[in-house]
């Protein structure tokens, strides 16, 4: 049975994290599970956690009147769900729903923010990793925004 800090290191995002840092992260975390179809969080609710997905798939949804719930992104195992804990006003921008049964580590945002302020190295390492993921997501989103499939082959 793995300890939480071992599980943290399992996630590709936190591979090679600074000495003692997985333990710090683990100190703010616990394991959690969601059944398929269960909601993780809703738009507008207070955002004070984030999730490191170990198993399953989470859909980020935007509710559009007349169109219903649009899935604008899915997050896969090994990735992180939730960024709104990082900056005020700490509220969720989208809904999140488990598409398949989810096992995750849920990390308390306030706890982690306090630790980062006390230990700048932890803060720096986390910020570096989170920025990389955000950049990748941003670029992928920009490509989808270009609506490339709109033009067609075949004359």
């Amino acid at each position, binding site marked *: 049975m793995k300890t939480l800090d071992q599980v943290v290191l399992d996630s590709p995002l936190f591979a090679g994290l600074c000495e003692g840092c997985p333990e710090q992260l683990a100190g703010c975390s616990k394991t959690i599970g969601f059944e398929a179809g269960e909601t993780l969080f809703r738009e507008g609710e207070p955002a004070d956690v984030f999730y490191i997905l170990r198993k399953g798939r989470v859909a980020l949804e935007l509710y559009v009147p007349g169109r219903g719930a649009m899935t604008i992104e899915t997050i896969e195992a090994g990735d992180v769900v939730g960024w709104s804990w990082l900056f005020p006003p700490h509220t969720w921008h989208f809904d999140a729903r488990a598409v398949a049964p989810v096992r995750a580590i849920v990390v308390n945002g306030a706890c982690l923010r306090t630790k980062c302020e006390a230990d700048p190295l932890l803060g720096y390492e986390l910020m570096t990793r989170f920025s990389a993921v955000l950049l990748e997501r941003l670029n992928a989103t920009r490509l989808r925004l270009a609506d490339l499939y*709109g*033009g067609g082959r075949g*004359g």
Partner: protein
Amino acid sequence: MQPSSDVLITLDGLSSLVDALRGRGYQVVGPKLRDGAILYDELESADDLPSGYTEIHAPGSYRVERRDDEARFGFAVGPHSWKQFLLPPRIRLWRARLNGGAPEVEEEPPPEKPFAFFGVRSCDLAAIGIQDRVLTGGRYVDHDYAARREGIFVVVVDCAEPGRLCFCDSMGTGPSAESGFDLALTELMNGEHRFLVRIGSERGAEVMAEVPHEAAGSPDQDAREALVDNARASMGRTLDTEGLKEDILQNLEHPRWDEVADRCLSCGNCTLVCPTCFCVGVEDTADLTGEVVERDRVWNSCFSLDHSYVAGGSVRQSGRSRYRQWMTHKLATWHDQFGTSGCVGCGRCIAWCPVGIDITEEAAAVRVREGAGDENA
């Protein structure tokens, strides 16, 4: 070169030559003064030639003027090239009767009478060879072009006076043609007005047998050589072709393209008059009943937006990219696609460009490399 096969004919002989070709069933086409220009049109006799006329070429300018002699071929090239006849501006490819689902297709036959091209300049002869490679030298043969090409009789004429925009010497296409013709005429006016005739094929020899002629002597051949040398020395333009393809392809973002784009109107005149430009498109039409449909093949130009249209838009939207496409194709990528340069140095594009863009000037400018850090600068 076999000196013994060169002959001399007089002006009467020239008339006989045209008559002999017509008599053999050829449609003789050659230079004719019409609409203020020297065009290629049907010749009913040698009297149709623009006797005593010449052309004055300048960037963006072409004028026909009277000479002070009666030279039959005292000019260079006008707006027409022989692609008027080999790759006409519009032809029908086929016509079909749909018959409610079991179409009967009739491919358009080539013209019944083969052409005799009378008065082909060496640059234009080279251009015909270039189009031969494009349209018959690959995996697929253009039927109509091949059919028109197959029967033609070629009478080349040497240029004694190159036009002021000519650079056939730079492109290796002139001023003299050495092969690829049935007959080659050199107009000699030192003394009696006569023509030296070089016979280039058996067919040429057969035709000459019907035309009154006498053997040519070395003074006539010397006169010809002097004319050719003089022509070579009087070119109006030059184009340095050494490493040209590589230089152009390495400078696709050169600021000169922006500069020429400010002047270019994308009118496409250059592509119309260029003897090697071959871009075509097709137009499908139906009659009012929808029962009879046709496909025509028509000249297209890379200067049109349509030319590069794919679903979603045209790839070459800016005038800059279209001028660059034309010039890079003509002088650079043509080599990789078809094994030769696309340019024969006839100078027509310079004369017929409304703003006088000079391809020799643009080519020289775009080779000059910009900026530091360029190894070969």
